[in-house]
């Protein structure tokens, strides 16, 4: 079995995918309105149950939302999404390859209001998803 080639971000029981870090201009997408209270609740539960305060997002490998939705049709259940780049997130937080591709966890220093608010500032929110009826 090959040794891990890439540094681990998490010190937790969750397995990280052994893959190269994303480029700074890679797109991260989170389905929904990015309501702070909701995201905070998810980060708190993630911390309690999985051992780290994470916020889930998906990597749009081609840079196109329509391609990401084809790969992850669950995103089509949302009317809108929030979008950012890995580079923007990395100015404040770490990004870990967790779960099944294209899932990533944005790792907060703590599951607290200040961190979630700071994360929201890094996203462009209210981006329509394909088929939502408001994507032109």
């Amino acid at each position, binding site marked *: 079995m090959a040794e891990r080639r890439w540094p681990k971000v998490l010190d937790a029981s969750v397995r990280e995918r052994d893959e190269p870090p994303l480029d700074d201009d890679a797109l991260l997408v989170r389905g*929904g309105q990015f*309501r702070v209270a909701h995201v905070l609740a998810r980060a708190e539960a993630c911390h309690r149950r999985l051992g780290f305060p994470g916020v*889930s997002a998906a990597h749009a490998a081609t840079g196109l939302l329509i391609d990401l939705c084809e790969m992850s049709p669950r995103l089509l259940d949302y009317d809108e999404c929030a979008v950012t780049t890995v580079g923007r997130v990395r100015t404040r937080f770490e990004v870990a390859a967790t779960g099944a591709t294209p899932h990533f966890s944005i790792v907060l220093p703590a599951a607290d209001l200040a961190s979630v608010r700071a994360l929201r500032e890094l996203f462009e929110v209210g981006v329509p998803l394909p088929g939502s009826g408001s994507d032109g």
Partner: protein
Amino acid sequence: MTPDVWADFNQVDDDGHVVAYLEDIVHAERVVLGGAVVVADPEAKAHTAVVVGISPAGVVALDVDWATQPTGSPAGSTTAV
């Protein structure tokens, strides 16, 4: 109608199953291994799912049928967390 379990559809595990936590469970009697449940994200549509894993740490893995939308199920945020 409330779902049997809330979840964040953005979050999936290593097998691509949607992740929910113990505190997300509304109807505990329905959330049993192999059982069918209604799962909803407060910001998305509800679906039926099969419970494929319940870990000792309180993590529930759900195999969601994205093609289904249960009758009378919540459409989203009115009952949000």
